[in-house]
């Protein structure tokens, strides 16, 4: 036993010595921490580290987490990633990465992406929100959501940071109780199968309970967290043992952490199974899609992205360094991103190579160079790669689609009904900013607002709830989570009630409803605020054998092909206005032209036969007279004067 103990002591000493040597030997640039720059080894570094918790005062020293403290003397605190991981990785640099920098007004917004969708069926609200300035989205503050409230609602599927860390002068006390939602490094990098993002006591639940300070530790698999910061009043002090003990004796429990006994070693250090290359399952928690079709409502009905099935992971393409400036992988990203791999990480970049360099960069990671047999080159000017290769195969109507971020997939008590709001449709083939047609996910905004200088400003949601919530209280809400059936009368009532806010309008189903001076409801169909919000689809990529056009041109150029003539349902709480628009309406192409062009493909086989037959006749005539001419030459050369 003593020998065993001696052995462990020796190994421990050796481990500490090795870490010290590595730390000392690594000649970091000034200002860089040990883990800010790789030394080039592809081996995974071992993370056996001590846990540090946030002190009650920001200027105080970090508190070392010791599970053996006396609870009457001290409060057992959750570890902080800012302090624990920040020992070796500059937290400030990481927190400026793509997943955390939406709140930074200087951060590049890039191509429009998926917004956060705030939904309330009773008030007919379905509004796209984003801190980024993507056209068609609204800032949470415009909708009356503070950063704290926004984090509590949507932080479930955020890796922390961003709005969760902003100091809110109006909510200093509340923020002291809940803590900040720091960047949750483990949400992505933890290889421990116990990492719990969506379990009953996991990250999402902790965030919704306002346990921002505890959420990372609760999800890490190292500890269990109970209680709720939401239930604590603003005078509650989570650092004061007396305050905690008093709260514990109450009906509503304060947030408490209990570390699992076996995670600490004899030096109170903890082993983290950190994966530099993030496992795809971690990405899926926030980035899953469910395409609902005829009888296809479960994920096993649909295949995963072909790249995943080929053995790749998300981060093989979506890479980043310490700056966490992950590349999104769309063409043109190099114009705004400082990530050096963006040019070769898009579909084209990987499969064809970066044409701006002289080095052969195509075929990265074994990407096959596409042949595109029989595909006229003009398609590459008009379409993105994803148009033919990504998303579900288009049907007569786009698929109702659920996403993790919109429908909180993977968290407890999700309404699994296909009709559950928000209503996202995909694929919708629409022209994007670069002039190419790409498949998009689409959502029709629906919200109450005021018209100021022809611009629509959403009315703060609290105001809407107070004024309209009561009006529509008796409306029966479908159990499926679908819209209630609004009528024009509902809109009139709502607009009348909201008159005090200004020139009240209701946006829904692509229309702007307002009351004229006589109190009559009027509709405007082309107002920019009523346009659907669309964001391009990148995944799931289908194999070449399932790409559009693989069977014949009429996969797209058919008179009833969904690519041009699919019916995109106009989603709105107003039952009478639930109509449809043709896909071609989103493509800046004349519908009659699209139809005529598609119709011309009926005659395409005949055209081929005629041209081929005519060519054969001409070739025969040429050959016949060429042979005759040859005969003459032979005669002449043979001395036969004919």
């Amino acid at each position, binding site marked *: 036993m003593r020998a065993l103990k001696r052995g462990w002591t020796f190994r421990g000493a050796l481990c500490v010595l090795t870490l010290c040597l590595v730390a000392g030997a690594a000649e970091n640039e000034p200002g860089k921490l040990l883990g800010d720059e790789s030394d080039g080894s592809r081996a995974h570094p071992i993370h056996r580290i001590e846990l540090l918790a946030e002190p009650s005062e920001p200027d105080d020293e970090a508190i070392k987490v010791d599970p053996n403290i006396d609870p009457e003397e001290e409060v057992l605190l959750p570890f902080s990633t800012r302090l624990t991981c920040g020992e070796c990785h500059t937290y400030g640099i990481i927190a400026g990465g793509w997943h955390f920098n939406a709140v930074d007004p200087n951060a590049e917004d890039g191509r429009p992406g998926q917004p956060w969708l705030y939904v309330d069926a009773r008030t007919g609200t379905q509004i796209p929100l984003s801190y980024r300035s993507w056209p068609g989205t609204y800032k949470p503050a415009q909708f009356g959501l503070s950063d704290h409230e926004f984090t509590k609602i949507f932080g479930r599927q955020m890796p922390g940071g961003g709005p969760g860390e902003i100091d809110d002068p109006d909510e200093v006390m509340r923020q002291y109780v809940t803590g900040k939602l720091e960047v949750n490094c483990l949400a992505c990098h933890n290889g421990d199968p116990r990492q719990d993002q969506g379990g009953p006591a996991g990250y999402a639940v902790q965030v919704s309970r306002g346990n921002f300070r505890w959420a990372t530790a609760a999800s890490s698999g190292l500890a269990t967290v109970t209680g709720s910061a939401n239930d604590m009043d603003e005078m509650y002090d989570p650092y004061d043992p007396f305050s905690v003990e008093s709260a514990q004796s109450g009906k509503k429990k304060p947030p408490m952490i209990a570390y699992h006994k076996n995670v600490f070693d004899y030096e109170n250090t903890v082993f983290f199974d950190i994966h530099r290359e993030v496992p795809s399952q971690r990405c899926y928690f926030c980035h899953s899609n469910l395409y609902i079709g005829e009888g296809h409502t479960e994920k096993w009905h649909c295949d995963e992205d072909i790249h995943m099935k080929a053995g790749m992971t998300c981060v093989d393409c979506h890479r980043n360094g310490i700056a966490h400036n992950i590349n999104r992988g769309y063409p043109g990203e190099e114009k705004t991103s400082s990530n050096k791999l963006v040019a070769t990480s898009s579909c084209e970049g990987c499969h064809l190579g970066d044409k701006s360099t002289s080095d052969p960069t195509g075929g990265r990671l074994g990407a096959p160079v*596409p*042949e*595109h*047999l*029989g*595909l*006229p*080159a*003009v398609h*590459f*000017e008009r379409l993105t790669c994803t148009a033919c290769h990504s998303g579900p195969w288009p049907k007569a109507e786009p698929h109702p689609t659920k996403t993790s971020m919109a429908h909180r997939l993977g968290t407890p008590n999700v309404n699994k009904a296909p009709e559950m709001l928000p209503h996202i449709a995909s694929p919708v083939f629409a022209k994007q900013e670069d002039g190419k047609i790409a498949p998009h996910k689409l959502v029709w905004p629906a919200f109450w607002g005021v018209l100021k200088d022809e611009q629509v400003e959403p009315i703060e949601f609290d105001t809407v709830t107070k004024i309209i919530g009561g009006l529509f209280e008796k409306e029966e809400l479908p159990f499926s989570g679908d819209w209630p059936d609004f009528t024009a009368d509902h809109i009139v009532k709502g607009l009348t009630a909201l008159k005090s806010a200004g020139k009240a309008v209701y946006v829904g189903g692509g229309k702007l409803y307002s009351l004229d001076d006589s109190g009559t409801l009027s509709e405007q169909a082309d107002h920019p605020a009523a346009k659907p919000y669309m964001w391009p689809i990148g995944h799931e990529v289908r194999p070449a054998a399932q790409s559009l056009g693989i069977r014949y041109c009429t996969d797209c150029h058919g008179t009833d092909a969904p690519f041009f003539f699919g019916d995109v349902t106009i989603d709105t709480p107003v039952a009478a206005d639930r109509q449809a628009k043709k896909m071609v309406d989103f493509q800046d192409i004349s519908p009659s*032209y699209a139809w*005529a*062009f598609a119709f*011309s493909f009926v*005659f*395409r086989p*005949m*055209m*081929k036969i*005629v*041209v*081929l*037959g*005519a*060519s054969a*006749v*001409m*070739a025969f*005539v*040429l050959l*016949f*007279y060429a042979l*005759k*001419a040859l005969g003459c*030459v032979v005669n*002449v*050369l043979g*001395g036969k*004067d004919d």
Partner: protein
Amino acid sequence: MHVSDMSRSISKYKRSLVDYFRILVYLVAMFSFVVLALTGFYPVLVLGEHITGYLVMIHATFAPVFAGCMAVLAVMWARQCRFTPGDLPWFERLVRLLTLTEGDEARPGRSSGLWQKITFWLIIFLTLPLGLSILASMFPLLGTHWQELLLMIHRYTAYVFSLVVILHTVLLFRMRAK
């Protein structure tokens, strides 16, 4: 039959049904050619972009008509346009010189039908790459690089083809005027 019969078939008063058919085919071919040239060259040479929209539909509609007419004209005019000893006396002399054979002096050629024959055979010859280049691109046989190459072949063949057709037409009308 001689190449001048070609113009004769258009201008002579006493025509058979075949002559009428030949004229009809010729006129349809000329009209198709004009439409194809306008729809094909206007977007590329004037607008600097690919042929697209309704233009491509018109282009694709007249293409098989034109190809069909060319096939008919090839069959109907080929015999008249075959080269005869009188067309190339210098060539005949050269051959005799090289092969040390003797024979009658070359018969003097009738009018200037030689260039019409040459342009006729060029037209028939160029119609093949012109049509087949675009036809081949419609089958799932060739990849992107070849698609681009075929388009180039189609485009540059069309340039040469148009020049030859114009020359042929000028010669035809000149002969008719004589």
